[in-house]
């Protein structure tokens, strides 16, 4: 434990690690788990062994999960692997094409690729810094297993390095996965030799350690100022805001101009003029400076910058350990503090909630209020609304920059086709929002599901309360998207009505389907909604939604086409056309109602038979 220096040499084998079955000494034990090794032997067990033992649960957990996969699990893993390869390939192709494009520009080419490399490193560095702060909050201060590890007679340095290792693995693996195809593309596009790949492999570790140590240090200070749980809330919120702003910023840059040769000249000027990673004090600049000379076979001070990276990483690690020695225990104690309820304490908020839920039966009302309260008290949930807002802004912005120039007929044609396609797009947005908010709502009952199951509560009430909590905001969102875009495009009134009504009906079915699939694939042990959405249930749901939306759009294509052509040619619809339009629209309505009814029935039945 930190702050218990004196015990470290005498108690070299940590109980926490022993329980996992330590390799050498751990095997020699009595049936009750007491190690039979003598004290002098124990004293010889060095810190690296303890470090290995502390890190081993992570790897053992992965190994055990893989070893115990059933047939379904192996399929899922295979599918996930395929998706990973597809994602990886997409990144490689994107970078490879972008780099080739840049390199084809005379004079500017190498400058642009260097700028891009700097931008890549700077982006990685910023992401890593933020992700390390959030991860280290868990690994150092909030993890469930910390009680045992902190209570173990461990040297402070072992605890620090084990947790730092955990933090680096957890926060950096995704960035590394993203970086590999990107750097591979750099190598291939520049025709680099094996030295480039070797240097890249050597550069990454110190580059990952620097933001990790900075992140841990930052967390240690923050936790001593605020309680850890509060800090995490603030950071989650900040990260969501940062992502939302970045997303909007990136969209407003109009990256589509990259593929527009006419706009390219100005983009080159823009990129070249950007004062990106030129600060010589940033580790991302050093990393770029290590790779750049190797890449182009040009002169440069790669070794100096590599030394800078390594020495900074080492120095920061030592400084961070010193800081943690002083600040860990007070911070950890603070992390145990509880929190008072927020939001719903205000009588006004509570009154509004009670008023809104007046039309519901007493039990349903209680459930709806509970859903809303728990949603707004969970930062990882409500902060997603900020991302949603960014999504809406970008969605509407996309329509404002659509190139709709052309003759009157062309414009009229384009606008109505786009409005129709917008129906599918808006449906997709609704499904994406539902997969994150509606699908997990059954799973989020979690281990508390016994409360509803053992109460005299018809479970259809639980289903309907979750349905209304989901459908109302999503319906508002969907209608805003279609009404605003249709108004902007100034499409036919019939088209406006058709879009609004279709999307409204689809929303009911999509939300009900979300609950049904959520009940079919419950994950009561998931601690947050994102994990549920990312599971098999999420995949199944998205496939079902896409099929449903696609079918509705196909069924409505003929009525829209017939109406549109009659308007364009200024003719009246024949009686056959009218009948076929009614039949198509009727089929779409029937399908929507069918999906809704089937989802509700299945969802309620499933809830009734679920065994938590």
């Amino acid at each position, binding site marked *: 434990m930190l702050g218990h220096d004196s015990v470290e040499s005498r108690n070299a084998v940590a109980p926490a690690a022993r329980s996992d079955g330590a390799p050498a000494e751990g095997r020699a034990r*009595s*049936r*009750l788990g007491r190690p039979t090794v003598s004290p002098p032997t124990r004293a010889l067990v060095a810190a690296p062994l303890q470090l290995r033992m502390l890190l081993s649960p992570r790897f053992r957990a992965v190994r055990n999960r893989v070893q115990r996969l059933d047939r379904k699990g192996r399929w899922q893993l295979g599918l996930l692997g395929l998706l990973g390869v597809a994602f990886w390939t997409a990144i490689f192709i994107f970078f490879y094409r972008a780099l080739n494009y840049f390199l084809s520009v005379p004079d500017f080419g190498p400058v642009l690729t260097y700028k891009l490399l700097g931008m890549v490193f700077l982006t990685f560095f910023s992401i890593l810094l933020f992700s390390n702060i959030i991860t280290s909050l868990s690994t150092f201060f909030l993890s469930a297993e910390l009680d045992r590890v902190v209570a173990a007679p461990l040297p402070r340095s072992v605890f620090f390095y084990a947790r730092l290792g955990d933090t680096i693995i957890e926060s950096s693996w995704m960035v590394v996965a993203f970086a590999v195809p990107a750097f591979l593309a750099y190598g291939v596009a520049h025709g680099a030799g094996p030295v480039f790949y070797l240097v890249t492999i050597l550069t990454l570790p110190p580059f990952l350690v620097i933001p990790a140590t900075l992140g841990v240090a930052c967390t240690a200070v923050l936790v001593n100022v605020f309680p850890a749980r509060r800090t995490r809330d603030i950071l989650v919120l900040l990260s969501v805001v940062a992502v939302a702003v970045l997303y909007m910023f990136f969209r407003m840059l109009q990256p589509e101009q990259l593929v527009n040769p006419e706009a390219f000249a100005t983009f080159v000027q823009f990129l070249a003029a950007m004062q990106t990673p030129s600060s010589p004090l940033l580790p991302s600049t050093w990393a770029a400076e290590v790779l750049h000379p190797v890449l182009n076979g040009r002169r440069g001070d790669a070794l100096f910058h590599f030394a800078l990276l390594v020495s900074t990483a080492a120095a920061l690690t030592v400084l961070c350990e010193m800081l943690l020695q002083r600040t860990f225990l007070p911070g950890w104690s603070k992390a145990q*503090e*509880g*929190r*008072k*309820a927020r939001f*719903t*304490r205000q009588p006004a908020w509570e009154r509004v909630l009670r008023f809104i839920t007046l039309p519901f039966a*007493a*039990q349903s*009302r*209680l459930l709806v209020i*509970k859903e809303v*309260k*728990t949603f707004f*008290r*969970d930062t990882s949930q409500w902060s997603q609304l900020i991302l949603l807002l960014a999504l809406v802004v970008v969605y509407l912005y996309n329509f404002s920059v659509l190139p709709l120039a052309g003759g009157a007929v062309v414009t009229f044609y384009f606008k109505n086709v786009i409005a129709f396609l917008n129906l599918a797009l808006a449906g997709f947005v609704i499904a994406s929002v539902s997969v994150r908010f509606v699908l997990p709502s059954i799973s989020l009952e*979690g*281990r*508390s599901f*016994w*409360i*509803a*199951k*053992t*109460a*005299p*509560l*018809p479970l259809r009430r639980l289903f309907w309360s979750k349905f209304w909590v989901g459908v109302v905001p999503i319906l508002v969102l969907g209608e805003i998207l279609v009404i605003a875009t249709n108004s902007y495009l100034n499409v036919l009134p019939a088209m406006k009505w058709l879009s609004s009504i279709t999307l409204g009906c689809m929303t009911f079915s999509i939300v009900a389907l979300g609950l049904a699939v959520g009940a079919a694939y419950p994950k009561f042990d998931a601690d947050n909604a994102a994990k549920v959405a990312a599971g098999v249930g999420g995949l199944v749901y998205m496939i079902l939604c896409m099929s449903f939306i696609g079918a509705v759009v196909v069924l409505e294509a003929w009525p829209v086409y017939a109406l549109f052509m009659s308007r364009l040619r200024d003719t009246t619809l024949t009686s056959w056309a009218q009948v076929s339009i009614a039949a198509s629209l009727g089929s779409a309505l029937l399908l929507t109602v069918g999906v809704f009814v089937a989802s509700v029935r299945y969802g309620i039945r499933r809830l009734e*038979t679920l*065994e*938590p």
Partner: protein
Amino acid sequence: MIELIHLTKRYGHTLAVYDLSVSVDAGEVFGFLGPNGAGKTTTIRMMMGLLQPTSGTVRLAGHDLATDAINAKRLCGFVPDRPHVYEKLTGGEFLDFVAGLYDVPATVAAPRRDELLELFDLQDWSAELIESYSHGMKQRLVMAAALIHAPRLLIVDEPMVGLDPRGARLLKRTLRQLAHTGVSVFMSTHSLEVAEETCDRIGIIMQGKLVALGTVEELRRQAGERSNARLEEIFLRLTGGEDVAELLTALRA
């Protein structure tokens, strides 16, 4: 009040509970004992509708759980072995929520909530989020929630786990008081001392089968133990205590 009739639960080839028949009268505290994995929690989960029995009937206050679950549950209070509750609600809000689920009018629920919070020593914590409660506090909160609608039956699974001696004593006293008012209590426990002190009758389950049933005195006779034998000895005799004996020897070594 509580009737389990030929209750059986099978998981694939594993028989978790087999042909279990027990009845508990009004005002009786029934202790359900057995070693780990004997089928206690499975039985209780079937009694509360959390698991579907493979065969057999659960009747609570005359209502068949399979056909009249809502009315059966309305009269029942349940305390699970692990106190998982909605962490983002406050203790007070949770009790109000449960009262609402059981259709307790707000005018009755509010004073009862305050009374139970005080009884279980949680009044100072009622406005705190449950996520900040200790295990023992959550256990007491769940106990309070099980009583908020004044149930006629109380089903309790391992209630002493995580409770401090004060909390345990409070719970034992509460269970006895409830029995005095006519409430039937069905309690599974590992604590033989608690069972001996609190229960009117005891059932011992082994590998899914009921191996003994009766008062402590009747069990003593069934086990062929001397008249002053403690429940621990009777339990070990009836359940075969080789593994326990080995554990005790190893611990003493």
